[in-house]
């Protein structure tokens, strides 16, 4: 054996000059990631990003369907749209926010149940959570019309318990009906987006090492304290992504408002839809849609910053 490596003598390396031919990684190899990215990214640029640009331009156009639209930097559209439709905006955020909180309150116990208490029933319960997906959500939403029907069992029970008296005083329902009231819409929204809350919650709860509960108990924490100081903080990633996955689609939803609500419960999605597809006032529709996007993105960014979970992607 032999080695001609210069002895690592303390005075640095006065090595004889070597003929070193530098090898560059081949161009073909370096381009591989770009070829992989190209089709998908192009798709997103053309059919997601570019449309947003078009929409931005539409929102500052004026004109009519017959004479065509023209960019006139008419920002007044935004002001008018907000002035006319701010109740729908507020309603959307209010309904979506309420539904999100309800989803969290209802979903957490179920996610916890699946993660820690279900034992050999775990897979069955998981299937039951996911299975409703396979029936079109519109059909399932229509089923709520039956469940909440006037004079139906639910309304009767709520009436007997005098719950409806309270909720109608709060303005959530009418004195003898639930359908076509804010409560029906929120109930539908909560129902539709519950799985989007439960699944991320379950994923992050399931990752928690069961021994942490024992360790907390060993260190003098009551079950309630263990939940507050150990379980809940560790499930934060699930809470954050669950609330986002619920709030974002709920804020733009108009299906529940249209099917279960009345004209008094219209959300901003309904307005955008009818401006675009029925009234054909494209600038107003585009402006409304932009305002909604801005509000949601602002809230989401702020929320992610506050909760300190920036790597959701």
């Amino acid at each position, binding site marked *: 054996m032999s080695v001609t490596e210069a002895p690592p003598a303390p005075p640095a390396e006065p090595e004889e000059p070597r003929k070193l031919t530098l090898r560059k990684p081949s161009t073909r190899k370096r381009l591989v*990631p770009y070829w992989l990215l190209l089709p998908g990214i192009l798709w997103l640029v053309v059919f997601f990003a570019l449309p947003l640009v078009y929409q931005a331009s539409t929102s500052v156009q004026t004109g009519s369907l017959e004479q065509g639209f023209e960019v006139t930097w008419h920002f007044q559209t935004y002001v008018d749209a907000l002035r006319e439709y701010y109740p729908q905006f507020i309603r959307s955020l209010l309904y979506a926010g309420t539904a999100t909180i309800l989803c969290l309150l209802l979903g957490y116990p179920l996610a916890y*149940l699946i993660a820690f208490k279900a034992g050999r029933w775990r897979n069955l319960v998981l299937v039951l959570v996911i299975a409703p997906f396979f029936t079109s959500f519109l059909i399932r939403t229509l089923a709520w019309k039956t469940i909440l029907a006037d004079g139906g069992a639910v309304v009767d029970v709520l009436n007997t318990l005098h719950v409806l008296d309270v909720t109608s005083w709060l303005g959530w329902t009418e004195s003898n009906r639930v359908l076509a009231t804010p409560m029906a819409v929120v109930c539908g929204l909560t129902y539709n987006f519950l799985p989007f809350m439960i699944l991320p919650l379950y994923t992050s709860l399931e990752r928690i090492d069961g021994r942490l509960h024992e360790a907390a108990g060993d260190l003098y924490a009551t079950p309630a304290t263990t939940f507050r100081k150990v379980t809940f903080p560790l499930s934060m990633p699930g809470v954050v992504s669950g609330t986002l996955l619920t709030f974002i689609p709920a804020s733009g939803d108009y299906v529940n408002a249209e099917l279960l609500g009345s004209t008094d419960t219209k959300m901003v999605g309904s307005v955008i839809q009818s401006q675009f597809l029925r009234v054909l006032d494209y600038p107003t529709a585009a402006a409304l849609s932009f305002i909604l996007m801005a509000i949601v993105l602002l809230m989401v960014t702020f929320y992610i910053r506050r909760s300190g979970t920036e790597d959701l992607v």
Partner: protein
Amino acid sequence: MSVLRWIRRNLIVIAGLLTLAYMILPNIVVMVFSFNKPKGRFNYAWQQFSLDAWEDPCGVADLCGSLSLSLQIAFWATLGATALGTMIAFALVRYRFRARGAINSLIFLPMAMPEVVMAASLLTLFLNMGAELGFWTVLIAHIMFCLSFVVTAVKARVMSMDPRLEEAARDLYAGPVQTFVRVTLPIAAPGIAAGALLAFALSFDDFIITNFNAGSTVTFPMFVWGSAQRGTPVQINVIGTAMFVIAVLMVLVGQLIASRRKSNARN
């Protein structure tokens, strides 16, 4: 009071089961009302038991046509989104390149945007380009919004893959193509399958984006939406129930096969 104590001890289980009931109740209603024989045009109140709708599920004009259209769109959208999304996921995990941050945001944004915003802006684009609304515009839209979900699902799987497995394959005389087919793909398969399944479900059940960009084409969700205004045929419930049952059966059979295989491997 022992009853109160039992309730307190099992509070979480009780609350969880109540939520579960809340989630399943509509499915039960859909199922029960598939056997209804309604008086008027709407199937919202129970009248009498009947098998009419089950015996003739396509008995309503356009219903089965819209169903088949939705299945076709979902199939092609799944194929497209899975292919494109898998490629992106591999690029993101396995390679270093410029503009990574921008690309990550471009993938995240469609998931952080209310559907109605994407629907409206895409329609603006199609109107500006003078595209004819129909099958193709719906397919384009579906691939677009499924893509990000596929990327997320596949990326999670590829990230947990040991890159040394591919190195081992190359070390053992497998060229780039062989390495991908024999090692990378089989190991990434569960992630790709999860992404594809998600894409299929999202596409098949999508209403808002489809409604904006379909023109006069009618998918199954759009049919249901239309019938909510005009009158809901019982057949809708039949199809909803059938899909639910088929899906649950498929999951159960899959579980059975998996557990049988596991016990075989043990012996």
